[in-house]
């Protein structure tokens, strides 16, 4: 049974986010950028804000755009095993997935 006194981890993740210069913090985003960041924000309900997963779900932040895109396409075709991602990926066009993958790839992470 996973237990979750995880407040400390949550605080650490939040502090990182607040201090980051990630693409979402840019106030002057273009309409296209604002559109894709809102789409990507839907995924954050499982993968955490900007894809900075706390664990248990894969992290997406700052990963290779091509790898993310390939995974999403493979979820759509059923080639990649999934419990739920095939059902989400099928809700988006290839172009939408491309833009979302590029967006997550552009998130700055501390290395």
């Amino acid at each position: 049974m996973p237990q979750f006194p995880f407040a400390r981890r949550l605080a650490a993740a939040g502090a990182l986010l607040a201090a980051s210069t990630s693409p979402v913090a840019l106030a002057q985003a273009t309409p296209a950028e604002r559109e894709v960041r809102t789409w990507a924000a839907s995924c954050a309900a499982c993968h955490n804000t900007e894809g900075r997963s706390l664990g248990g779900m894969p992290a997406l932040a700052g990963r290779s755009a091509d790898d993310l895109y390939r995974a999403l396409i493979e979820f759509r075709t059923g080639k990649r095993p999934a419990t739920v991602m095939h059902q989400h990926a099928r809700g988006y066009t290839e172009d939408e997935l491309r833009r979302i993958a590029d967006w997550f790839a552009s998130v700055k992470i501390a290395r």
Partner: protein
Amino acid sequence: MTALDRRHFLLAAGAGAGSLALSGCASFSQRPLARVVVIGGGYGGATAAKYLKLWEPRLEVTLVERNEAFVSCPISNLVLAGTERIENLTVRYDGLGRHGVRVVRDEAVAIDYERRVVRLARGDALPWDRLVVAPGIDFLYSQIPGLESPQAQEQVLHAWRAGPQTVELRRRLEAMPDGGTFAISIPRAPYRCPPGPYERASVVADYFRKAKPRSKLLILDANPDVTSKPALFKAVWAERYKGIVEYRPNSELVEFDLRNRTARLQVEDVKADLFNVIPPQRAGRIAEGLITVNRQWVGVEFLGFESQKIPGVHVIGDAIAAAPAMPKSGFMANNHAKVAAAAVIARITGQPVSESPIIANTCYSFLTTTEAVHVASVHKYDPKQKTLVPVPGAGGLSPGRTELEGQYAYAWARNIWADALG
């Protein structure tokens, strides 16, 4: 950032909008672009407050919340089953402060739409340029004669807002003797968390199975059938909880006889040792003036969740009259919040509101205390119908319950709490 960098940044940020104000002293502050007040710090409101600040730091964002901490309804059925503790579902609001959200612990008692202020029970009224209302639900006890009084409501719990009632219902389940009957009454849809009552029945049955195997669990459902994941729930009841769970459709509660611990349904009377009555619901009381649908729910448009009644006021979460096939869930509230935040920012900065929002939902349900299933959907805006509609071919159900999905259900909870509050 050094002081100098900061000044440059603020100048650059303020120049475009012409909103920079220098104060006389060495330290100066920028006048906010606009004031946004968010009422309610649940899955929807907390997310909206955080994303407003994340996406537009020049806003002044104030969140009004009456409770000291957020307590999650999702996962709380496992507190009833005895495998989880309420403390672990509780998250403080400090995280929002780190994003620059001002959290005001108070109760919003009225909204003055003319003067554009929110009145509070204790503190000074809060002025707003745009308002986000995320009030959750209120219970319609007036529809259940016998349960109108607070005393009656103390005896027959709903536990449909996680918190003290959850803990108290667990205590009563533990106190119930083996061989007793526990009855759950479910209102007509729409209500908060469609699969929730059936999940509750399943995991409490799992507790009975281990701890008091001679007990019965009666589901009195006002609906003609299980409203979510019917095949998955019925399968586990028929197999693992055979002899414990009994499901009765079309069993709307019309009156409650407290003295005889009897639920009066249209067709019969039902006695039980312990009742859990989930009452019919409507939008939380503070949103009363915004209700347009069935005297229960708030009608909104689906590009920005703006009230159909009062411009400049966005309403999200369980309180809205949902678009087709959109459940009242924490996940949906979180996703409404982001579309609403984007629209609020677009309106304030004079940018176009996106005409192609895409949101999603996934509700995990535990069928045993460790195994879960899900239902998922993706929703896109249809300009012809002017609403969000489920994308055909996307979404769906789990084939069956697994421990892997039990782990994902927990991981989802942890990550969405961080997304909303961290």
